[in-house]
């Protein structure tokens, strides 16, 4: 369970001060699929960064399974991300000149997993996204959709509990985008992984259990079930 309690984040100082997040609170149940919806500059990306421990709001708490990640030391935050979180980005961020294997293997290396174990896990993850036959290909030789699938494989290879997807279909056409959506929601349902999608695409948001609308740094409204099985 992720509990976001009264977080605020301000950028800049004095005259250039800009409050990206203003006293935001909500709760996300384990295994839920959540859309954070907002226009660009609404603070939705900042919110995602805060929830994943990449950014630190000045005030408030973010409890992941009861632990306030804002109070953790940098080393522990790194470990938290490495162990529990997977990222998918709009522009994929796959390493073009590395092989698919090496791309997917990176989070495992960071987590310090042994070479022999890595091999099996990478193969399994690539199978999951149907890229097994591309294991030795360089990432630059893949199509956009394949690259995003590779990114998904990289995100799920370490079996995280929470998947963050930042505009996962933003750079894809509708057909390949649909395939990516299918993969993400399929994985969410099968493995019970919490899926948090940051998007401005209402169609994609509609497929999620919960929709959190963010506007000018505040939660405008929340649709759907915040705690699984209980309407709010």
């Amino acid at each position, binding site marked *: 369970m992720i509990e976001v309690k009264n977080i605020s984040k301000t950028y800049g100082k004095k005259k250039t001060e800009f409050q990206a997040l203003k006293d935001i609170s909500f709760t996300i149940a384990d295994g839920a699929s959540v859309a954070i919806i907002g226009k660009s500059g609404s603070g939705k990306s900042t919110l995602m*960064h805060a929830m*994943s421990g990449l*950014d630190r709001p000045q005030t408030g708490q973010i409890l992941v399974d009861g632990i306030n990640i804002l109070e953790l030391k940098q080393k522990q935050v*790194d470990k938290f991300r490495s*162990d529990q979180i997977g990222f998918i980005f709009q522009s994929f961020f796959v390493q073009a000149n590395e092989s698919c294997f090496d791309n997917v293997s990176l989070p495992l*290396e*960071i987590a310090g997993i042994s070479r022999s174990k890595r091999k099996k896990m990478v193969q399994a993850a690539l199978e999951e996204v149907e890229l097994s036959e591309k294991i030795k290909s360089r990432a630059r030789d893949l199509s956009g959709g394949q690259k995003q699938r590779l990114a998904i494989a990289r995100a799920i290879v370490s079996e995280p509990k929470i998947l963050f997807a930042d505009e996962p279909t933003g750079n894809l056409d509708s057909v390949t985008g649909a395939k990516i959506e299918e993969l993400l929601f399929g994985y969410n349902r099968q493995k019970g992984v919490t899926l948090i999608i940051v998007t401005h695409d209402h169609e994609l948001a509609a497929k999620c259990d919960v929709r959190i609308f963010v506007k000018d740094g505040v939660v405008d409204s929340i649709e759907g079930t915040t705690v699984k099985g209980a309407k709010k």
Partner: protein
Amino acid sequence: MKTADIVRRAGRSLRHAKIRTILTSLAIGVGAFTLTFSLAAGEGARKYADTLISSNVDANSLAVSKDADFFNGGQGGGVKEYDPNQGNFQGTTLQRLSQEDIVKLGKIKDVKEVTPLYDITPTYITRDGQKKYSLTASQYDPTIRVELAAGQLPKNKAQLADDDVLLPDVYLSPLGFKDASEAVGKTIVIRVDRRGGVDAAEVQQIVATQGVAGLQQLAAGQGKDFVLRIAAVSKKSAAAFQSSTAVSISGTKAQEMANFSTKDTPDYQKYALATVQAKDGSDPAAVKAAIEKEGYTAKTAKDLQDILFTIVNVLQGIVAGFGVLALIASVFGIINTQYISVLERTQQIGLMKALGMRKRDVSRLFRYEAAWIGFLGGLIGAGLAWGIGTLANPKISEALGIGSENHLLIFQFAPIAALIASLMLVAIVAGMLPARKAAKLDPVEALRTE
């Protein structure tokens, strides 16, 4: 993150930027090349000096002088008060050893033999029916290894028979010999003239009254012909100290000649240097201490070696200095390359950090990349130096005339491996700044795409 994985990733990102990596490595390679050469040349020169000394100087022999200035080229000199014991030796005024000193030295513990350096200044060498030729002569030193062209030398480091000479092969054709074996057993004449007895005023008077003929007559009366037998003919040796034109004569004859030519001069029985032979099995250093206690200055074979080594070390240091300069230049190359690499890979670094890679590991990744560059540069430089040096060795030996069995460049694995290791260290230090920049990168900032 495991070290092995970081090392592998570091190597991989360098492979993805091959040209840049190789160019940066080459900069280090220049330094490595120079340093490898300095290592090899130093080692080779030391080996050569060692060969020279062991084949020329008996470990048990010591050079003894009365004047400490003898061994430092008169550096402590300046103008000195006149003393009949002084004499000029190679442009320096020095205190000399007298006959009493020689006797005194002979009585020191563990001293087997004292041989003064006789001041032999023969006038010319000739033989029946041949012209006269100038020469230098020195006392035969049985401890020096000589390569013979013909004839035989006394065994067991014995002195030459009194009337024997060892003739260098350069005298063969001037003296009318067809070859070395023809010369052996034949006699030659060495003329020694007396220095003292006649002063300049007398000479002027004789020239004025009797002309050149009178002078010749005077000179003839003041000279002595030594008829000597050629016992052996020596060849030029690559590992020899001895000047190749010095005719070696027996100790007895050397003394005779020196005494004859210096009779009635202040130089009579005065020696700039004496060779002290320590007894077999005794410690030359202890003998040296005993001699120095008596107020003399002594140098052992090892001291001589140290002097040569000092020269070699200085020369090696100069070459190494250039290598270090090249290295310093290459350090900036590495810093520059790695900085650009960090900038280029901002997204990659951001991603790695987002995936939970620790600051320390990011920093290590870039430092290891630098280490790889250092390793590669070291390998290229040292490898080239090794290859070129090995190929050039025979040519260098030939050009310097040090003999084909002596090599000026000696490449050894251990010092070169140590060199490469230290280059990697230097590269890591150079990579520190860019690595820190990478580690400090804010992942949110790095991954922002809009």
